[in-house]
């Protein structure tokens, strides 16, 4: 209750000075978080440890560090200190109100859109973003939607004035939604099983042709840099150079198997996003070193006959098999729950350190940002979260401070604001509770 009051005071102070949540200015003095329990990710859990950062980067981690001149010392004794969480698969900043068309920017029309980029539309002022920060998420991958080649995602920090300020990795991946493979038997389905199968083959052939065309362009472009630019295929040059990975969205075993064969045929770096059936494809994923962005650790089983915990145990199975994976959330508003998705995986057998890693460093690694973020390491960006207790459990998760690149982030949000506005309202009939 004490900390709650503290936050409230803090929030009140902020609302007095601003009508919105102002991005924090660059770090202009060293800060020492003193005496907390540091969950470093790379170097284990360090009790009673100080974390010193300056100029936006972590300067030192250890016991009883000597604060440099002008250092702000913040006592975090008894509290947990983590790297900020890194969310994958989100549509933050691309959608505000799902049912209001004007606020949706996640899906471009058409099926071959390798040239669209989410960073062109990311709205850093979305009201959803502060509510996400409040639960310890500092970075998020912004992913396009749509069918087949959806576009390219970026990785942003969640405390920025503009999309340009926000970008951490401007091109994370090209996104490919693998066509469906399940025969639909629902009442709405008008095609026979055979017709559906034919359509599925057609869809797969369409991707093949697209990659053939793009590859032909790639070869021509390498031979002659002066050919006419095809906007779509130009965007895929880095894919064939193996610079830009392709994140294939696939859940069914057959999709996963087909996608891996496809990646081998065209020689691109593949990441699997989704992975409901990953348990069936463990050997394939391992042999081909395919990292997995798993988004279903709290979800329903993939098939009606599956075990009730089929979706819950996939992270543990991936870990046991040595397959690199992270836990993501394919949503905007629900991204704030990724800590609990990791907690759920832990509840179903994943080791605590690995659960934490799955929403921090592992996510950064899969997005190629591990040298800058994702762990508490000297030299990395000082993107840090302080919680009253275990970040992954509702009962202890209580984020009291967040720093992004050493900048102290405003943790107020629309929800807290409305809470303050209404919590003590006295209406007619007050006190007549049932």
């Amino acid at each position, binding site marked *: *209750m004490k900390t709650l009051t503290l936050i409230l005071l803090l929030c009140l102070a902020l609302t007095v000075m601003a009508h919105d949540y102002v991005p924090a200015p660059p770090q202009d003095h060293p800060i020492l978080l003193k005496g907390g329990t540091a969950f470093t990710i790379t170097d284990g859990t360090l009790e009673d440890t100080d974390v010193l950062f300056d100029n936006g980067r972590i300067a030192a981690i250890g016991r009883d560090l000597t604060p440099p001149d002008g250092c702000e010392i913040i006592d975090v004794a008894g509290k947990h200190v983590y790297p900020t969480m890194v969310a994958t698969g989100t549509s933050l900043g691309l959608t*505000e*109100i*799902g*049912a*209001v068309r004007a606020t949706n920017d996640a899906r471009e029309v058409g099926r071959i859109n390798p040239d669209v980029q989410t960073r062109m539309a990311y709205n850093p002022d979305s*009201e*959803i973003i502060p509510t996400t920060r409040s639960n310890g998420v500092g970075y998020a991958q912004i992913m396009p939607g749509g069918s087949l080649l959806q576009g390219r995602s970026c990785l942003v920090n969640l405390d920025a004035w503009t999309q340009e300020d926000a970008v951490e990795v401007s091109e994370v991946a090209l996104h490919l939604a693998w066509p469906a*493979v*399940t025969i*639909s*038997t*629902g*009442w709405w389905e008008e095609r026979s*099983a055979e017709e559906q199968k034919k359509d599925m083959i057609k869809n797969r052939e369409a991707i093949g042709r697209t990659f053939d065309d793009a590859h032909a362009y790639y070869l021509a472009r390498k031979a002659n840099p002066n050919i006419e630019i095809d906007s779509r295929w130009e965007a895929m040059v880095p894919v064939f150079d193996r610079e830009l990975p392709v994140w294939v969205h696939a859940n*069914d*075993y*057959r999709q996963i*198997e087909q996608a891996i064969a496809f990646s081998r045929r065209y020689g691109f770096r593949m990441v699997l996003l989704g992975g409901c059936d990953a348990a069936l494809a463990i050997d394939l994923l391992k042999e081909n070193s395919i990292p997995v962005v798993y*988004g279903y650790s*709290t*979800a*329903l*089983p*993939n*098939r*009606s*006959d599956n*075990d*009730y915990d089929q979706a819950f145990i996939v992270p543990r199975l991936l870990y046991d098999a040595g397959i690199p994976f992270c836990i993501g*959330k*394919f*949503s905007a*508003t*629900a991204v704030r*729950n990724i800590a*609990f998705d990791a*907690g*759920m995986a*832990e*509840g179903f057998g994943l080791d605590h350190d690995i659960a934490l890693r799955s929403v921090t460093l592992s996510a950064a690694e899969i997005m190629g940002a591990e040298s800058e973020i994702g762990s508490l390491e000297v030299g990395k960006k000082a993107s840090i979260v302080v919680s009253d207790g275990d970040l992954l*459990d*509702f*009962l202890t*998760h209580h984020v009291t401070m967040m720093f992004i690149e050493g900048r102290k982030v405003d943790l107020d949000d*629309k*929800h807290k604001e409305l*809470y303050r506005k*209404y*919590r003590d*309202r*006295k*209406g*007619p*009939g*007050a*006190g*007549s*509770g*049932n």
Partner: protein
Amino acid sequence: MKNAVILLVALLVGSASAQTTPPLGIIDKTPHLKAFTNARIVIDPDRTINDGTLVIDHGKILAVGSSVEVPPGAEVFDLQGKTIYPGFIDPYAEYGLERAPDPETRKARHPIYDAVRVGGDAWNDAIHAEVDWSRYFAPDHEAAEPWLKQGFTSVQAVRMDGVLRGRSFVTSLGSGLPNDLLVRPYGWQVAAFHKGKSPQEYPGSLMGAIALLRQTFHDVTWYRQAHAAYRKDPSQRMPEFNCAIEALQHLPQEKIIFATGNTLDLLRAARIADEFSLDAVILGSGHEYARIKEVAASGRTLIIPLDFPAPPAVTTIEDELDVTLATLRHWERAPSNPAVLEQNGVAFAFTASGLDKKDEFLSRLRKAVKHGLSRQTALAAITTVPAEICGVADMVGSIVAGKSADFVICDGDIFDDGTAIYATWTQGVPEEFIPLDEPSFAGSYALTLGGGEYNLTITDNRKKGKRKIEGKLLRDSISVSLKDIAHEQDLISFAAALDTFGASGIARFTGRLVASSLGGTVVLGDGSRHTWAAVADTAEVTSTNNTNENEEHDGEITLVSRLTSPNRAFGLETQPPQQNVLIKNATVWTSDTEGVLPNTDVLVTDGHFAAVGQGLTAPDGYMVIDGTDKHLTAGIIDEHSHICISGDVNEGTDAISSEVRISDVVNPDDISMYRSLAGGVTCARIIHGSANPIGGQAEIIKYRWGGGSEDIKYRQAPPSIKFALGENVKQSGWGDQFTTRYPQTRMGVETIIRDAFQTSREYETAWANYTRFGKKDRERTIPPRRNLRWDALVDVMNSKSFITCHAYVQTEVLMLMRLAEQYGFRVPTFIHILEGYKIADEMAAHGAMASSAPDWWAYKFEVYDAIPHNPCILHNHGVVVSINSDSHDMQRRLNQEAAKSVMYCGMSEVDALNMVTINPAKQMKIDQFTGSITVGKDADFVIWNGPPLSVYAHPEQTWVEGRQYFSIEKDLAEREAIEKERTALIQKLLTTDNKDAPPGEKKKGDGDKGPYVDPGTKGGSL
């Protein structure tokens, strides 16, 4: 014989003068007197004559028996070696009628809420009760042929369209004028749960269709009373004429046919029939074995299709992924469904409807016999029982003098593989498939040709009705196959390569069968013409029938699948027993005034909590569970769920649909129940969706997994009803064509609900006035029409039924509370209620409770002010708050959803857990029975592996009323059993000869719940 003579005379008198149609040209007076001799005659399922004579004339049976004399002048058919069966009757067909046309729909622009009214018909376009389908009947020989080939001689037909489909007719499948073919022009009314081609929106759901039927059956009574009263006192307002309701006036004295497509619907039809004391015959689906006890208890006669499923596609491991255990089981067990029905004393007839190809009917029937159906019952199911169902037992269904000359001539037992039907006679007219006197060319012949001696061997077989003739020429152990074999009656022609024998080229033979020898003309390879003769040298004749290549015999089937309830993965073979239990030394979250009790024992006796305390001892026979380090809570209760509902959860058509009832469509087969038990849920309110301001009546279920739809209903719970406000009911997100239904604004939402309340009150008053009349006045006064829509609202206003109202923004919540107050009642529960925090005091003052979700927001505009602190504010202002799921997924983690209030706004863990136990029980008005660990309440409880609100916690055991429905151990054992059974079934499939049925054909409606939907993308339409 005397009778036959009398009948013969009667027919002679009648035949020429009884029909109205004037003949054109020369009048046909061909005699029709025929006698069939030396036949095995199956009179009916109980009586067979081994060597009998059948005499018919003018379409009627004159005589049948073993000592019947052939009348002089009769045309005689020697049926030595043949069997005569009564013609088969299909009691459910769409024959001789045009299929219902696709409606010219205005739907492209706007949905249609009203019907085009013609001739005083029903208000709903799915009701065709007034149609006598015999008036539209046109005999259709091409359509009749497939039935005739399978031995059917008559059918009961109706257009298969609509909820009340009109009156069936029974007709012969012969050719001619409908006037002569209609055996029973006015049959029975036919009902179904589909609106068919009606373009009108209502009814859009299964529960809507049932409600429409129920209302219409009530209207039948009202209509009779109203018109009787009007005749007595014509000064009253004239009651409407309604040809559909008028056509239903005889229902109480008649049969009604209910067409259903699955076993749950079959049971629903039986319940509706019980409700209105209707003599219903129900069309089933072939899945009856899976709920045979309930089916048998319904006591109804059934019509059973034989559409056994195609073998599931399991030949590739990829295809196998789409095949459920239930599908595999049904493949194995469907053929034994008729045997199971028989063993359980269910009366039934078979129908060929539902079969893609009618020519598979007999082979399916034979398969059913191999799977244990007795031949006697099988025959009854295609003769006497359907005759009874169709009301024509005095005319058809057995070979008895005076009945229609409808019979089948075949060459053996009809249930043996290989038995071929030679002819099907309808009303004394044959449809011949194999000539009775068909010669067989089979034999071994000595053939002399050009001085050479050959052996000519011919085989002549029928396989599945198709004749196949093969042959070879043999000399000096060199053999040449005959080719280009053709035949017509006793003529056969073939070619043979004689160069093999040293002659030149190909010789072409043509010959006739005379006695047992063949002979005719041959043209040799050199062009020379000769005559040839072949004399049969042995008596070896290959039988033309009964090549019984199938090794299986009646009833000799080994099943590897299990039968569970529900019959799917994780179904139960038996209900778990009610156990007396002592849980020792657990941390007990009582959800009662005691709060959390450490190291406490809980005693469960006869399904109820018997004691809570320390140091309790287990009486004899009690199971003891060590609760050390475990947490014990009351079962989780979900105030807002849509699991276990068959069909659409919305009757989202008319703005008011208070007459529809979830209780009509409870689906106990939904795997969601088991999964939720694994999440600690023991009870839920399953409710109508939010597509209209006044939705439908809710049902409260206990998670008695494995029980039937009636078993899982929680009878202690009072009735409740779903209301909804805001964007969904004004169709904001439905698409551009949905702009015409009233209301389209929150203003209109208020108005239409107010109007409904007012009308219901006036309706109640009208009834009160009417019931005060004495008997005499009542007979003279048109009664108020029983209106199920208003009945439900009268109960709401009298606080006999309770509203659970979908609402988001504060304005609409205040609106409904004030409206209710004006009509003198309260709205007990608002669901979603995401802006409840803005008017917490007003809600508390009204007495409203809140059932919410913690952190869903921003999916539509009305939830843009939703905050996760909402439950805390409401709770702190004295509102009883629950957390609900509204989701098949979230339902399994309601403890976590409750924990979010601890996290966001510091609610105590005890209060938070209460939000998913005792608080929803209060909202559902079942808190005196369940919702807490309190002595005397239902023993609904969960044993957790840790503190129940932790993200790391999950249930280890879930109990409902002292029965353990989930435990991790049982679940793991079941997984193994499923895997084993599945493997065995797949191996059986792979080793079964499936050449008759192409694998992998999926039929619509076999699916489960549709594709997986990411919960993160789920909208709020429910």
